[in-house]
């Protein structure tokens, strides 16, 4: 089944249509050209020499289509300028979970995809050797063809593909030594740019299926609330509205276009059973945090005896920090097209979790998972939000109810008010310094809603960024309170690091000040046994000119993070003049192991900084009586063109296996800016977003 889907989707390329996202009806009568060949799950070669690479991950801007293609093409030896890419369906060939979370695409593909490329190449070489009747050692693959080194005869991949596909796959292949890389390690332009500048890229929201209707959903403004009763008479009078269907999350208004559905929703009358979350407000959450900060939590890390060390320390420092709920707000509002039939279900979606999407559809329809086809489309941003399958389930529910294909679209208000948020969080941090001002004890009490499961009372997603600091402090205690308020929470670009790195790196700066140390000097000393983070810090500090004098009113701040298998240092330069904060410059240095695509790394480090800076300066979701108070971008603003700092990205050369990159730079920007504010003004920012009253 999967093969046939791949074959059909391949045809779009063979027939010269749009490369990706072009819809062909499921029951296409077209058949593949007879000499096209799938050499493995990732490599398809057409008799016309078209090389199609199957990208089993998904693209939300992070550059996966390009970087994974580089891994395949490096070993395949195809012509980089002639490759095409496709997103395949969900298949066990691609492992137990298909999705893009945790900045893991390169890390999990580094060996398998180079191996897949090499395997296909060896089969093509073997086919050429057999054709010529020579030994394989006489044949070399290069630029989309196999050359006979004795005769200089040449056979294109396309002319060999069908023979190669009949050969046994080699049991093992030898991968290139990095010194032989031609593509990997070179700054490489994205493969998806052209269609993104002429409006032709098909995002999920651009999917058009014959007979498709459009739906929007009215959900209870209070989390967990249910439909009590409703009156849809005015809704049904709106031109274009077809019907109103109750689904598990609310009431779906189905119409022949999105706008009519939205208009119908506007006049829908609903009585909600709001449920218990209606008593929750941000002020109460903060109070609850503060109360729990006085009580011991579940222990997440214990080195030495922090309590004893604190009791005898020459100097003791204590601070509390707080960060808000945050929405993801990807530019493409959530949406999904679903078509449920009695015996099959199709889902077209911009999703970070193809397997989760398939399983959600299977559960709702009662179909076996293999009866569900997921067609992955480009995402207009994800940032963790699209790892959830809630919006996919909604579309499947509606299509199942109406028996027709439907596109379900969220408004921006839905997006901001019905998110799975980055949890609000609170930290009570304590440290002890010795006579010379060096830290000897560090104690952190972290409090936030958990997700991803508790182990011994601790959610990894809630403590990462504090529990795994690399600083050599002999006595460390980290404990945690899991407080659940019924506000949905989940992954948000860099997850727990997004708040905990702010806590840890701001507080470390406090220790430097209290001990009379330079923030760089303190960090370098405490990282003597963490060479990769130490090197990233030295590089960033050097490029930022750490020791150079700044104009009055300006300050520099450092922050570090070790997450997703990478090590990132940032130095921010800010000014505060007449109460107005300006972030002028950010210098980042990252050791992400082997740099597969330095151009992509540069983009992602910049992107992560802007994402984190938006949150640090402006981001905050607040709750009143169980409802989110922010409705649209006027109340949930993000960084704008004129607020951009100058960003410099430096990559630490490395032969280590690649780390992740998409979430590397988001955690560090808030503390780097906060520390720079302290350097400029002497004011310590201990809550986010940064407020003007905290600068004066």
């Amino acid at each position: 089944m999967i093969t046939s889907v791949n074959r059909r989707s391949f045809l779009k390329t063979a027939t010269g249509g749009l490369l990706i996202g072009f819809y062909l009806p499921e029951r296409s009568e077209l058949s593949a050209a007879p000499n096209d060949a799938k050499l493995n799950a990732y490599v398809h070669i057409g008799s016309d020499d078209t090389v199609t690479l199957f990208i089993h991950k998904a693209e939300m801007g992070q550059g996966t289509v390009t970087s994974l293609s580089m891994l395949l093409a490096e070993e395949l030896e195809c012509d980089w300028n002639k490759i095409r890419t496709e997103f395949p369906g969900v298949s066990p060939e691609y492992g137990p979970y298909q999705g893009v979370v945790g900045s893991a695409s390169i890390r999990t593909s580094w060996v398998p995809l180079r191996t897949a490329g090499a395997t296909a190449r060896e089969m093509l070489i073997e086919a050429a050797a057999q054709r010529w009747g020579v030994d394989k050692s006489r044949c070399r693959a290069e630029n989309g063809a196999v050359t006979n080194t004795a005769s200089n005869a040449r056979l294109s991949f396309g002319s060999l593909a069908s023979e190669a596909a009949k050969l046994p796959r080699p049991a093992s292949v030898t991968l290139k030594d990095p010194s032989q890389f031609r593509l990997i390690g070179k700054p490489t332009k994205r493969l998806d740019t052209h269609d993104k500048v002429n409006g032709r890229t098909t995002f999920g929201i651009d999917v058009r299926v014959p007979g498709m209707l459009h739906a929007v959903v009215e959900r209870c403004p209070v989390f967990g609330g249910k439909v009590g009763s409703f009156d849809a008479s005015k809704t049904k009078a709106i031109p274009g509205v077809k019907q109103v269907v109750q689904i598990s999350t609310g009431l779906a208004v189905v119409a022949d276009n999105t706008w009519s559905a939205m208009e119908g929703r506007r006049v829908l009358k609903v009585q909600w059973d709001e449920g218990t979350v209606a008593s929750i407000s941000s002020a109460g959450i903060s109070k609850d945090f503060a109360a729990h900060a006085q009580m011991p939590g579940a222990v997440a890390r214990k080195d030495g005896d922090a309590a004893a060390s604190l009791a005898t320390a020459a100097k003791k420092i204590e601070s509390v920090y707080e960060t808000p709920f945050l929405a993801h707000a990807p530019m493409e509002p959530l949406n999904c097209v679903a078509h449920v039939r009695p015996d099959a279900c199709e889902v077209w979606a911009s999703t970070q979790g193809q397997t989760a999407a398939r399983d959600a559809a299977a559960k709702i329809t009662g179909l076996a998972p293999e009866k569900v086809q997921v067609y992955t489309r480009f995402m207009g941003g994800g940032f963790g939000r699209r790892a959830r399958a809630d919006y996919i389930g909604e579309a499947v529910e509606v299509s199942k109810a109406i028996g027709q294909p439907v596109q379900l679209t969220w408004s921006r208000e839905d997006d901001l008010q019905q998110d799975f948020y980055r949890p609000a969080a609170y930290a009570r941090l304590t440290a002890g310094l010795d006579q010379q001002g060096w830290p000897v004890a560090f104690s952190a009490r972290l409090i936030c809603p958990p997700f991803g499961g508790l182990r011994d009372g601790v959610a990894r997603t809630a403590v990462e960024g504090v529990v795994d600091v690399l600083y050599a402090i002999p006595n460390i205690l980290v404990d945690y309170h899991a407080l659940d308020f019924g506000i949905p929470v989940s992954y948000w670009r860099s997850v727990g690091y997004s708040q905990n790195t702010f806590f840890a790196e701001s507080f470390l700066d406090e220790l430097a000040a209290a001990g009379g140390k330079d923030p760089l000097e303190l960090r370098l000393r405490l990282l003597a046994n963490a060479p990769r983070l130490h090197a990233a810090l030295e590089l960033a500090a050097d490029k930022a000119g750490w020791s150079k004098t700044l104009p009055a009113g300006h300050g520099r701040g450092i922050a570090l993070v070790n997450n997703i298998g990478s090590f990132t240092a940032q130095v921010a330069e800010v000014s505060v003049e007449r109460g107005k904060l300006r972030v002028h410059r950010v210098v980042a240095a990252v050791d992400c192991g082997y740099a597969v695509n330095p151009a992509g790394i540069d983009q992602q480090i910049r992107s992560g900084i802007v994402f984190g800076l938006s949150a640090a300066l402006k981001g905050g979701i607040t709750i009143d009586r169980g409802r989110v108070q922010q409705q649209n971008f006027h109340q949930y603003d993000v960084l704008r063109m004129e607020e951009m700092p100058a960003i410099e990205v430096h990559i630490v050369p490395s032969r280590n296996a690649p780390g992740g990159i998409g979430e590397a730079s988001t955690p560090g920007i808030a503390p780097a800016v906060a520390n720079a504010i302290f350097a400029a003004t002497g004011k310590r920012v201990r809550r986010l977003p940064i407020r003007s009253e905290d600068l004066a």
Partner: protein
Amino acid sequence: MAVVKFTLNGKPQTVDAPPAMPLLWVLRDTLGLTGTKFGCGMSLCGACTVHINGQPVRSCVTPISTVAGKTVVTIEGLSADASHPIQRAWIEEDVPQCGYCQSGQIMTAAALLAKTSHPSDADIDEAMHGNICRCGTYDTIRAAIHRAAEIRRTEGGSR
């Protein structure tokens, strides 16, 4: 319902739609031109920007009735082959990441360039302020606008 006639990407277009229906949804759902994006529905993000009589306009808050007799250009009509200086510069600078906001960014930038052949950084800030990018491509957008101005100057194009 109202019959509205206008020029769309150089060709006459007639639609029969509720007069209050925003141009955005007419383009996307009625006419199938999906290059223009829905982002906020309130003229707050710029993703839906098109040109009406040469001016950058947020199509999400533009009732179709107000478009009667006017000339509308969408990303699909900016050039046939991504050859507009802005698009060429966007390709040279590899601007898009997720790419979703880029139709609107490009349409806003193209309108700026049509009006201001040598846009300064301040001109760019002013023109592009209303176009949100969550991937944070602002610095490459700025570089690409400067580059597009250079392309236009060196080639003397009239676009």
